[in-house]
Structure formats: C-alpha cells, structure tokens
C-alpha cells in the first residue's frame, strides 16, 4: 500500500501512522455536551466505500494528512495536508 503525501510524493504505507476517520478533525467545543463528545470520541460511520481518514507521515515529513481512500478496494484517490499553510 502506498499513500500520496502532498509534500513527499507517493510513499510506502510503512512510513505512515493511521489514526482513524477524519471526523477527528471536528473537535467539539468544550461545552458541546456529553453526546457530542461521545460521538466524537467513539462513534464512527464505518463506510464500506470511499472515506476520508487521517494519517501521520511519521517516518517522513511529519505532516498529518487527510487521505481519500476506499475501504473496500483500498484505492486511494487523493490526499491533502491537514494544515496546508506549512511546507
């Protein structure tokens, strides 16, 4: 498996750490309530198909990236920096 790091180009999966679904980017406000936090921390849509998920180019540039990937075929159709301002 290879992932297209927006900074480093296509790299072997073994350079990356996987965190989970990109909903982790939508951190609720501190006072959003227990349900919102429960949903954020635990619940997932678990789509069989195209998803956006979060990877860290840990053994590479250190960027967190959002990868568009199919969970059934493992096809990767793109990746973006979570923080596009730095290079």
């Amino acid at each position, binding site marked *: 498996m290879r992932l297209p790091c927006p900074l480093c180009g296509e790299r072997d999966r073994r350079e990356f750490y996987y965190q*989970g679904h990109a909903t982790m980017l939508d951190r609720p406000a501190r006072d959003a309530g*227990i*349900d919102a936090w429960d949903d954020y921390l635990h619940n*997932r849509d*678990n789509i*069989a198909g195209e998803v956006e998920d979060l990877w860290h180019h840990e053994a590479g540039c250190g960027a967190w990236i959002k990868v568009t990937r199919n969970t059934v075929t493992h096809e990767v159709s793109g990746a973006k920096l979570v923080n596009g301002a730095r290079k």
Partner: protein
Amino acid sequence: MGYSALKIFKEGLFGQKGWKPVWRNPEPKPEYDVIIIGGGGHGLSTAYYLAKAHGITNVAVLEKGYLGGGNVGRNTTIVRANYLLPGNSEFYSHSLKLWEGMEQDLNYNTMMSQRGIINLFHSDGQRDAFARRGNAMINQGDDAILLDRDGVKDMLPMIDYDNVRFPIYGGLYHPRGGTARHDAVAWGYARGADQRGVDLIQNCEVTGIDIEGGVVRGVQTSRGAIRAKKVAIVVAGRSGQVAAMAGMRLPIESHVLQAFVTEGVKPILDNVVSFGMGHFYISQSDKGGLVFGGDLDFYASYAARGNLPMAEHVTDAAMTLMPSIGKARVLRSWGGIMDMSSDGSPIIDKTQTDGLYLNCGWCYGGFKAVPGSGFSYAHLIAKDVHHEPASKFRLDRFRTGRGLMDEEGTGSQHNLH
C-alpha cells in the same frame, strides 16, 4: 443423526452412503419469533442456545454468504480466558467452560485442544502487569502460572534465549487455553441448531431493518421481506453497516487483521505462544502448519486482505523470537474484518429499538467467545435481561465513561486495542 465411531465404521463398510446432510436448505418462512442476522460463529451459537436453553426454535439465521464464512472461518483458533478486567473475566471464564463441554454437547468434534497458552514477557514491568493479570484469572477461578525464564525454557526450547532483541524474562502460562478447529465450531453449532428446528438460510443478505414506532417488525433481504418479533444483529466486521439500517452509529471501526499459515511440518511447537514485544502469536495446527498472526494492519478496511508491512512485521517477530522456524514456509495469508470497539471490549445489549438486539465489538478476539457470546446473547434475546457474565458489555459505557474495559490501556482510539 448421531455421530460415533461405530457409525463411521458402518459407513466405511457400506461406502459412506448413509450420511445425511448436516443441515437443511430451508426456504425463508414469512415470519419468525427471532431473526438472527449473521451466520458466523456467534450467530450460529446464539441460534443453538436459543433453541437448546430457551426452547425458542422458530428462529432463522440469515447469512449473506455461506455459514461460518466470516471471522469464525478465518481466525487463528485461539481459545483462552486470560483477561484482566472485571466484565471480561467472568464472561471469558464462562465461555471457556462451555468450550470444555462443547464436543459432547454438540456431538461434533471441534478438536478443542487445551494445549496451554504462554504469554511471554520481556521486562520487569511487563512481568508485573502479567502477574496482575494472572492473579485476576485466579481470582476469577481460572488457571494461571507465572513461569520464570527457566520455566519457559523447559516448555519452549525452540526460542532463541541467547540473542533475542528483547530477552525472555518469563511467561504467564494458562494451561486451559488452547486451540480448536474453527470451521468445525461453526458447523457443530449449525448442525445443532438445525436439528432443533432453526432455519439456516444462506445466500440471504439483509438489506434493511423494518422498524415501526420504535419497535422492530422484521427485515428486508435479498430473498424478500421476513417478519420477526425480535431481530438480533451479530455481524462482526459488518456491524457498522447493519446497525446503520436501524439508524445507529456505533463505537466501532472495522479493521483488517491478517493471519498466516505455513506448510505442514512435523510437530515442533506444542503450545500457543505470544511474544510480548511485537504482537506476534503462534501455534501449530494438528495438520502441522504453523498458524500465526500479529497486529491489525491498522487502517479501516472491509477488504479482508492486508498488505506487506504488517506481514513482514509478524515474520520479523518470528525470526527474532524463534529463528528455528525460519525455514518453515508461509503457505497462505488472509485477512478478516475486525469490529474494533472503542475500548477493545465487546457489546451485547439491547438497542433503543424494542426487539432489536446488538452483539458486536469483539475486535480480534471473537473466536474464543463463540460459545459464551451465543449463550449470553440468547439469554438476553429470550428473557430481555442480561446474562450475568455478560452484563457489563453495555453500549452506554462509552458515553458515560463508567465501566470501560480497556484491557490494553490505549484509550478510545479503536485500532490501538
């Protein structure tokens, strides 16, 4: 039809003509008392215990593929009751007891082999953590023995004690743990359920769950609508999608776990061994293949296949721990879809919909739970009360934080358990 050595002898003399189908191929009826979605190990054992323990036989198991085709058909067959935390301890303890009587109960040889499991540890800190676990096992009434380095050496001479990157300090030995013939477990429960009148319906995919006014009414399937008083979801890796049919979002992320088997070799390893520094575990099947596995591939996946980095990580661990198996050849690798829950422990619970039940979150440890899960789930479905040993597998624990069972101590990230 009962199985016995005598029966085998007779059939051998008469050309095997007398063997009957192990299960029927029934057409779905319009309505059942209970529909079980999922014909894997847990679904089949649930059906069996509904019929056997509760006399509920107007039951259908709906399987989208073939019976036993999910994780029960693709795991590394390890059976154990070596849990640390209350909630898990009593459940797996009960499940192991069911394993111990399974073959006679089912009249089917599932080849449950209590060959013992050894979890190796590689530092003082790991030893202390395993000691805590071992004591918890004994507190529960199960068995555990703390082996020192020499104790491990006596049992596992093939390990490299002199040059391994992380030296062997000792191991936690669980003599009653072992392995079983995984397919046979599914078939044994299927046969037992079928004999008691349960309809096992293969190639029948559930496409919708009918709910009216907060009450479940039945399911839509690839073979038409079927009504039911109660519907029980037990679909492992597909839990997220089936629950979504009932409007639920689960604390589950589905991941791929690979497993491996080598060509057959003569007996070299008598126990199940797990390496504490690299997520690697191994046993030898009765056919001679070394069956081993390791960690998840770590990315969400429904592909039931993995990639090389984790495969290599696992073989790397094999080579540092027991380089004497370097010349065994990996014959086949495969993957299963693991319903990773947010604390690494399972869910057996009712849902917000009356008559709809949920059983999921077994992560990569569902096989050993097959009898216990079916037993407790059947109890919940039949009586609408939790079976005591599974009473902590509640869905709301994630929301409240009360009663989390995070055995690995890795927190709410699904793939780290």
